[in-house]
């Protein structure tokens, strides 16, 4: 194994452990803002994994949309729906042994499927940036989903404004 591969493995395990620990904190933390902060960790480590998998456009999109967009929205929602001046914002969770058992079974099934993967893995040696390919694909093969998505985004823009606006008193 070359130095390069060892380095890649170390980066992979660092990112994977960060993601695991952060998602565990999202699931169990008792503090609202800490949960959001842990979600930041999950999103960053996943962005790093996308980078490791040579999906450079996804790396940028993950940070741009998830971290810079959705997480900011979530933080705003937390700030608008809680009395945030208090540092100890409680974030209740009702855990029971049934839930934990079901989740464990689910995890076991998923791991079993992952480990019995058929052996047809080919290795994709992509070295040039994916962004150009994705741009071409968006305007050729996946043009229809792309256009439908733009309509959907418009609809959700109008819907969000309609829902969040103040009621007009008559």
């Amino acid at each position: 194994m070359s130095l390069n591969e060892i380095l890649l493995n170390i980066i992979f395990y660092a990112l994977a452990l960060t993601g695991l620990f952060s998602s565990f904190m999202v699931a169990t933390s008792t503090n609202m803002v800490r949960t959001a902060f842990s979600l930041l960790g999950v999103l960053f480590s996943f962005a790093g994994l996308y980078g490791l998998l040579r999906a450079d456009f996804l790396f940028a999109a993950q940070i741009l949309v998830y971290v810079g967009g959705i997480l900011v929205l979530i933080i705003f929602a937390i700030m608008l729906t809680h009395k945030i001046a208090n540092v100890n914002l409680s974030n209740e969770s009702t855990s029971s042994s049934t839930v934990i058992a079901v989740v464990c079974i689910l995890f076991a099934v998923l791991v079993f499927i992952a480990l019995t993967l058929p052996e047809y893995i080919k290795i994709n040696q992509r070295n040039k940036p994916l962004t150009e390919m994705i741009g071409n694909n968006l305007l050729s093969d996946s043009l229809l989903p792309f256009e439908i998505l733009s309509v959907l985004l418009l609809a959700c823009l109008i819907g969000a404004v309609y829902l969040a606006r103040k009621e007009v008193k008559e």
Partner: protein
Amino acid sequence: MNIVLELVKVLFAFVLVMGIVPLLIWLERKISAWIQGRVGPNRVGPFGLLQPLADVVKLLFKEDIVPTNADKGMYFFAPLLAMVAPVILFAFIPFGPDIVLADYTFKLQVCDFGVSILFFMAVLSTAVFAVAFGGWASNNKYSLLGGIRAASQLVSYELILSGSFLYILLKWNTLSFRELIEKQAAYGWTIVSDFPFSLLFFILFFIAALAENKRAPFDLPEAEPELVGGYHTEYSSMKFAMFFMGEYIAITVMCFCMSVMFLGGYHFPGVVDVSGNFLNALLGLAVILAKVFILIFIYMWIRWTLPRFRYDILMRLSWHYLLPLTVILILVKALI
């Protein structure tokens, strides 16, 4: 051999961006003194040049106070993010022409992806979290208000920055800073080659960059008369210094970005070529630093001349005037 050269380059970029910070602090104090008819720092070293060094030593020896009810983990993490994010941003920016050595070309850019503008935008959008989490974790009403103000201000003005990046994409058809400079060297700098649009977008980008760096007249997050110190009220000693340095690094990086996007980066007609020998690279570095320092001077000039905006005016400026203007300009540019 190549690895050593690359490491030296990374180190050089880091030293460059960290070395500019004390210079900026000195410059800011001197310019403010000049504008207000004072002398400014003049005791430590020649022309007071060593003043920032003295400040750093002072800050290092200050007691590091952590508020009793602060959320420890996030309280420590926020200044780190505030400083690391702008330093990462600098990695995407080419700060000098290629050096053609015997066997390969040495690029004066820390990481040269094909889509560095996209990555720049992505990392830029993480700046919100340092102020939002830092303000919240201090457990102080003033910090919290400063953090919320900063978060909504940054989110509002980021859209205008993205619009300007979109314009650059439309105009030059590239997402790489390096190619951008090459194209500007071939067809003229953005600001002159596409006159009415480029100037308008440059002004829009400049205003948005001022707001993004939380500089006056948009420094609402740290408005002293209302919020004591804003989101870094509760930070002391080295953690405050990290917020402070992060702010100056962000200013430097934004000025680098502006000079690359609109003013041709390290290119200067007749003097610097986009690739060449070692002397050419030095000249290129000097050219881009000159452009950056002119922009930084304008930043400081604005700070010490204009009064602070009111918060609702700041928000209305972004959402009612600048953003529609950006969208209309992009549409017109796309149609032409």
